[in-house]
């Protein structure tokens, strides 16, 4: 059995779902950030796999380039995200998002 596009897409779908579940259900803000990284990496897998299998025997590089940009931007986003989590921690000595409930309604 050889690996085809569908195997990569299934892997990507599983990773994306794990990431989405974690991002919505976890209480620790740092874990939520990690789950978002998992979602973005799932997209990277899909991008590169599409790029590789799109046209038989021809490698289209657009998906690879896209994946590199996603990684770069994700790093910048994580940096700002961690800075915001630090200000939250300084304000209330916890990074539990369930307790970030000053504003409701």
């Amino acid at each position, binding site marked *: 059995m050889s690996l085809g596009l569908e195997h990569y897409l299934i892997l990507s779908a599983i990773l*994306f779902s794990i*990431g*989405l579940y974690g*991002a*919505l259900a976890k209480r620790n*803000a740092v874990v*939520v*950030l990690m789950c*978002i990284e998992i*979602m*973005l990496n*799932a*997209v990277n897998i*899909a*991008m590169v796999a*599409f790029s590789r299998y*799109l*046209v038989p025997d021809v490698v*289209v590089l*657009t*998906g690879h*380039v*896209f994946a590199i*940009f*996603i990684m770069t*931007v994700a790093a*910048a*986003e994580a940096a*700002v*995200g961690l*800075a*915001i*989590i630090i*200000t*939250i921690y*300084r*304000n*209330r000595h916890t990074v539990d*998002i369930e307790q*970030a409930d*000053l*504003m*409701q*309604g």
Partner: protein
Amino acid sequence: MNFWLLSPELSLCGIALAVVLLDLVIEQKKVLAVISVFGLIIPIAFTIALWGEQQASFSGMLVVDNFSLFFKFLILGISALVIISSVDYVKKFARFQGEYYALILFSTGGLMLMCSTGELISIYIALELASISLYALVSFLKDPKSSEAGLKYMILGAISSAVLLLGMAFVFGITGSTHLDQIADKVSTLVSGGQLWDSPALLFGIVLMVAGFGFKIASVPFQMWVPDVYEGAPTPITAFLSVASKAAGFAVILRVFYTAFGIEAISADWGMIFAVLGAISMTLGNVVAIAQTNIKRMLGYSSIAHAGYIMVGLAAISTLGKSGVLFFLAGYALANLGAFIAIIAISNKTGSDEISDYSGMSRRSPVISFILAFCLISLIGIPPTVGFMAKFYIFNAAIQQDLLWLVIIAVLNSTISAYYYLRVVKVIYIGEPLSDEPIPSSIPMRVSLAITSIGVLVLGIYPWIVLRLAETAVVTFP
């Protein structure tokens, strides 16, 4: 490579970097605001000089046409007004005033690039340039509310951009290109049966992209962040978020959907998606806004409702609908900015955003109260304000496309919205003042209040000044 086409963005980034560097040597931080505002004249001048240009450069990544220039002008103007009205507000932060102005400018650059790209990778990069600057700006006050707002905005924004990327991955995977015009060629062969269902993977990609962009424009069901972020963020940033970020979001939606998925066979399908989302957005926004006691939160729900009205124009797939969206965004920007600037002026003195604290405000500051009331009336859509003309135009476009049910819902919603806007007006004019102290207003505040209120009135009487521009802007799309 034609750097002339990129001149507005390049000059804007130059000014932003200059502000960061000058921040190191200038003691008087007010000077930085002056540099930012007068610096913005350079990109605005380049934008006006480029008007009429119709070119793509950087292998299709940059598209300069009247459509993108219209939005660039709008976003630069909003950014200038937001910076002018921040001058008094920034005294709240002891440090980092230079970074505050620079981040607004960088975010403006990102929003401008969003409006003028014809390619998925650069749409994503521009969107993130705008969003990451905004995450930092929203949590700029660093107090519990502001940092909580920043956390919520950042987490939900990151999730929505992941969803948007998955959509882009599927569109790229099924069409083999990230260029919008090449996607359009492939889409017409994919849906040869004449229905979006012919290609489930494409449908999946389109729906995920709607979800990703829906977050930016604050449409249901991606609106959960709006009230909390609007309440917690520094008020000038709330104003910026509610108009500039929404305008750029609609610009991207218009370009992506009309260029890439514009063929007649499927445009009715995504038009229906926007019609339904729009109807739910305005109903939810208006009904929940009634119960609010905080004015920033109330305007947050009103912004969700306005996203719904603008989507009526997206659902009406016609030239009238497209130019209506552009005109509505310009009018909404003026009215909403005017209301927010008045709120900034009042909260600089009272330190409160609760509607009950606005009691009797007309006796403490007749001019600011009148402008606030006037802008709220424009948001309801009562003549002679721009809000009325914008709604009239966009609903007319929808009626011509047989979307009568949508227009009925929209008009009913406008009636509901009158209740909560007029409640604020009533509190301002009929309530007893809590103190006799007048609300001071500095010269920058007066200038920005004057620009927005005169704009609301003039565009309400002579709408064709902007309507003509909007009509020439949308001829880009077939």
